[in-house]
């Protein structure tokens, strides 16, 4: 099989992942999109490893690394999302603007970011 096929699939998967990271509002979906991006990278690595006939199989080794890191990162990420949900009652990324620089008059009785999500 020519290397084009898995590389194109990988690129498509990566693009879908980028779209998900930049455009989805739900934090969990963002995390899933990040997973998608990482797996696309994995596919790319394996495909090139086979095509280049690397004797040390650097691509496949790096794939294993990426799988582990992705798993750890998703675990941590989900833990953060759960903590945010517990305090803010929302995981809408658009609502989580506490790091913004624009000084807005604080709404009394409504912590930042709460409301209809």
């Amino acid at each position, binding site marked *: 099989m020519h290397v084009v096929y898995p590389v194109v699939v990988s690129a498509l998967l990566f693009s879908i992942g*980028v779209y998900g990271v*930049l455009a989805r509002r739900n934090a969990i979906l*963002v995390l899933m999109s990040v997973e998608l991006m990482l797996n696309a990278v994995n596919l790319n690595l394996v495909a090139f490893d086979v095509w280049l006939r690397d004797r040390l199989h650097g691509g496949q080794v790096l794939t294993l690394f990426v799988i582990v890191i992705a798993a750890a990162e998703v675990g941590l990420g989900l833990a953060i999302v759960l903590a945010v949900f517990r305090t803010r009652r929302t995981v809408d*990324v658009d609502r*989580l603007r506490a790091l*913004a*620089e*624009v000084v807005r008059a604080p709404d009394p009785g409504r912590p930042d970011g709460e409301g209809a999500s």
Partner: protein
Amino acid sequence: MTAVVALIVLLPFAAAVAGLLATRLGTRTERMAYRRAAWFAIAPGAASAALTVWLAVALAHGTGVSEGRFWSELLPGRVEGTLTVVETGSVPISLTLRADGLSVLAGILVVVVALAVQVYSVGYMRDEPRYPSYSAFVSLFTSAMLLVVYAGDLIVLYVGWEIMGLCSYLLIGHWWEDRANSRAAVKAFLVTRLGDVGFLFGIFVLGAAAGGFRIDDVLRADIPRGTLVAATLLLLAGVAGKSAQVPLQTWLPDAMAGPTPISALIHAATMVAAGIFVVARLYPAFLAAPPTLDVLGVVAAVGMLGAALAALAQDDLKRVLAYSTISQLAYMAAALAAGSDRAAMFHLVSHGAFKALLFLCAGLVIHHVGSNLISHMGGLRTALPVTFWTMTIGFAALAGLPPASGFFSKDAVISAIEHGTGPAQPFVYASALLTVGVTGAYAARAWLRTFFGPARIEPLPEPPPGVAHVFDGREAPPSMLWPAGVLAVPALLLGLAGPAAGVEVEWGPAAVSLAVALLGAGIVYALWRAAPEQDPARLLGPFRAPCERAFHVDAVYAALVVRPVLRLARGVVRADARVVDGAVRGSGRATLGLSGLVRLAQNGNAQLYVTGLLAGLVLIAVAAVVLT
């Protein structure tokens, strides 16, 4: 010999320093301080006077290079000495003192009148506050005027010139409790300062052209005519300022707010004559620039007649004398314009004597009556006999009646004007003759209304500040009478010394001017006889009011110069706060605004940040691919 000249200048300066710093050291009472101040004032002044006489004798016996000036036969000697030369980087300044016939002539006038005034002031200012500082400033003034007279370098002359202006300011404002006196002093200083700016620029032109500021170098240098005309015109600005000529004459009448001895010394005999003296000193340069002399003649013609008419309409005795001074100085200027510095200097010395005499006598009258106004005076002939006779001599000299010195000196001036050439000469001559008549008129008016007619003395309980003393029954202390008497002598007899100085009387013009003067005096006498209580100035009719206001020149200057400048000043302050500083504050605001714009990117949305990251990454990748 130069040391003598230096001493003449420095003795009054030392007197001033001692008077300012040392009068109250160790004295317990005010009287003691005053007495010490009087000694500080009079002793060095007398020593200076004695040294001046000695210098004059030495110069009379001296031999020197004849320069063909009018004093070269009488006082041929010359003394000059340089202390040091100051390298400025271009034109050097030499600290030089120089004494020749002209300086000694003016110098004698200065020291005699200064001494008379200092003695007079001891009586006049007896119960006045701040007499020690007053006499110290008079000494400082004397020193400055002597520096002008004996300066051998233009910058040294300028230093003395300006210090005179400062002393004039300090002394006019002597009774500063009344803000009007303070304002008059400021006005005097500013008007003369304006003229002095032009004077300094004229000095620059001469010094740069001659390569040095020494007067000798300047007079000997070969300077192109255009440069000379420019330089002398600029110098005229300073002369007009200091000698109260049109258009800078408005300060002199207001300067009468100062004590009367000051008016006698500064604003009659010496400082105002300094301008005439400078022109005489640099006369070869002026002679080589005829356009300047024409301008001087026109200015003098306008000034002499205008001031004489104004004098006729004044009610304040001192203001009459002030306008009279402007008019007489214009005579001297006209003589210079006509080409005769001899006549101008003769009139300067004689005018110095009789005008100082008139002011001192006016002081005696004011001291007695308690008011400056002529309408408060009358019938003082019996109450003030000495004053009456001396003031009569003064008025006679002013009007130009023989045998007083004014007759001879005025004749010399009128003859010089008659012989003068130049496009403006007829105008100047006509103006001079008319002025003779008006002078006779106002002199007669002042004389008659002060000393004759019904007595109108009401002893005022509290004279306003600016007028010394109250009615105390006797004429005056001797310290005030003696100086007046001493000055009456040259006022009467100086004219007879004229022929010895080479000034001959031309009987034709003399007769004409005498007739005109008597005509003016006669008209006033007739009007006065008809109605002794009324003012003979009513002959001016509807012109009385403009004449009294000196043709509203003051108001014009206030509207054209003073108020716009003050408005401009307020505008500048507003512009500074709003525009210039506004730009500075605006830069701060702009920076804050810019940072606000940049902050818009920090809206807390993590996805926006990642988008930015991605965009940057893509750009870098594209750049890397394209550029390599």
